[in-house]
């Protein structure tokens, strides 16, 4: 309900009478978003099951949703899958944080100095279009099979997107806001911290989101290529499952990878985005 209040941008006082109405509204709202999603999910599962039943591939290569979901359940409770997920998420968190700091610094430099932007812009754009997997051979040469190699590629994947997002967000700031900031005494670092970055935030969040997508993809590629003994990450789980022809285990790990991506994109970034837009009156009240 707190989320509902924040998203609507209105502060409603807690009143006994309206709690039920709020709850009902929340259920309806969740139903409206989750209803179509549940339908699509059911359809996908049905298609999967139909494919299995068609006998296109034997069941030990392509198991149906039933056995895979059962396997997912047991692996998460008893197997290594949960530990693997924790390792992978830790790497993602570290990589994304480093990328965030570097990407923001790079973006601010590009916003501030036109010459540097002309110099760095095409390089950053090039880095962004470069498939991050292509970095791994070099990363492994430089850092061997280590955490550093993975971190290196995750940061290279995500930081350019974050920097580009900040520059794009800054480009869309109404000039009047920057002028108002100057008139009101925001100079030097304050101008960036209190005017430019918050004003650029709606556009910047899109860059943060894209940066996350790149970081997550790079991380998965890295975990498949850079296997570190004793570090049973999600990528390693995928590799092992393939090597042991454990199709159910493989699909269960894939579902975890997919769910994490969806959860971060929709729940974390989607919520941040909606919150920012609601607070600034950029959200259609009907939507």
């Amino acid at each position, binding site marked *: 309900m707190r989320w509902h209040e924040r998203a609507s941008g209105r502060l409603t006082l807690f009143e006994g009478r309206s709690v039920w109405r709020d709850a009902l509204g929340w259920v309806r709202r969740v139903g409206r978003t989750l209803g179509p999603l549940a339908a699509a999910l059911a359809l996908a599962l049905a298609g999967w099951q139909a494919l299995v039943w068609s006998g296109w591939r034997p069941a030990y290569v392509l198991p149906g949703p039933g056995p895979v979901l059962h396997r997912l359940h047991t692996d998460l409770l008893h197997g290594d899958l949960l530990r693997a997920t924790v390792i992978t998420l830790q790497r993602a968190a570290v990589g994304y944080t480093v990328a965030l700091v570097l990407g923001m610094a790079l973006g601010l430099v590009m916003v501030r100095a036109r010459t540097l932007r002309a110099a760095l812009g095409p390089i950053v754009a090039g880095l962004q279009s470069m498939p991050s997997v292509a970095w791994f051979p070099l990363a492994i040469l430089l850092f061997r099979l280590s955490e550093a190699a993975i971190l290196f590629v995750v940061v290279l994947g995500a930081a350019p997107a974050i920097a580009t997002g900040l520059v794009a967000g800054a480009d869309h700031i109404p000039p*009047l806001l920057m*002028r108002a900031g100057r008139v*009101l005494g925001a100079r030097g670092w*304050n101008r960036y911290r*209190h005017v430019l970055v*918050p*004003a650029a935030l709606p556009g910047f969040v899109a860059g943060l989101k894209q940066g996350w997508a790149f970081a997550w993809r790079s991380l998965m590629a890295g975990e498949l290529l850079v296997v570190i003994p004793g570090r049973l990450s999600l990528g390693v789980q995928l590799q092992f499952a393939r090597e042991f022809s454990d199709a159910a285990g493989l699909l269960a790990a894939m579902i975890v990878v997919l769910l994490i991506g969806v959860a971060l994109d929709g729940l974390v970034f989607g919520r941040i985005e909606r919150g920012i837009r609601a*607070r*600034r*009156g950029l959200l259609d009240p009907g939507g």
Partner: protein
Amino acid sequence: MTETGSATLTPLCSDHAPPTAVALHAVTKVYGQGRDAVPALNGVSFAVRAGEFVCLVGASGCGKSTILNLIAGLDRPSEGTVEVSGRTTLMFQDAALFPWLTVEENVAFPLRMQGAPKARRREQVRAFLTMVHLQHVARRRPHELSGGMRQRVALARALAQGARVLLMDEPFAALDALMRDRLHDELERLWREAGLTVVFVTHNVREAVRLGDRVLLLAARGGRVVAEFPVALPRPRRIESAAVAELSALITDALRREVADHAVA
């Protein structure tokens, strides 16, 4: 009613007069260089006494906003000098509130930039919001307010800056007439209570006569002060009053002549 050419306008510097708050001496401003050079101001001179309310009127493109930018220090004159005593602040036609901050955070913004401690900020914000009668919307966001309320928040924010010279660039042009009248009353009251100096740019002659101690008429192009009209009417004035209308008609005629002269030349 005196009409004075800019060349003969002498700054008021006698001993008994209040000190000068703003003075422009033969200010020229050219944008661009070489063949692309666009002259915005061409030898503007005028002075504003401390505590005076001066309105600048002129056709669009006569350099009114440029003058305010120069006084605010956002821009430098190409030639001539701009003297300002005391801190200035500038208000625009758009309230230009920061959409990510609440009303009270917006008003606190200049204090925060000055590094004022939190307790003082809170106290000052309350005082300034009360001054513009908006203490009840302190926690709201700008997008939840009407245009008039937003402009009042902008006024409170400008006052919070501690400026002695308030520069206003057509601040009420986007508001409906009723709201504008209310804001005229409010601005007049604040100007008197806080002892501010106001330089107010508008293309609305009646608004200028309603508010100003003096109305300066700017040349249609070439940016000079071509005429000066002291407004000797007692305050508070009503924008509908016959006296305001009479003087407005006189100034409007001068403005029309100015535009027409320029069209012929």
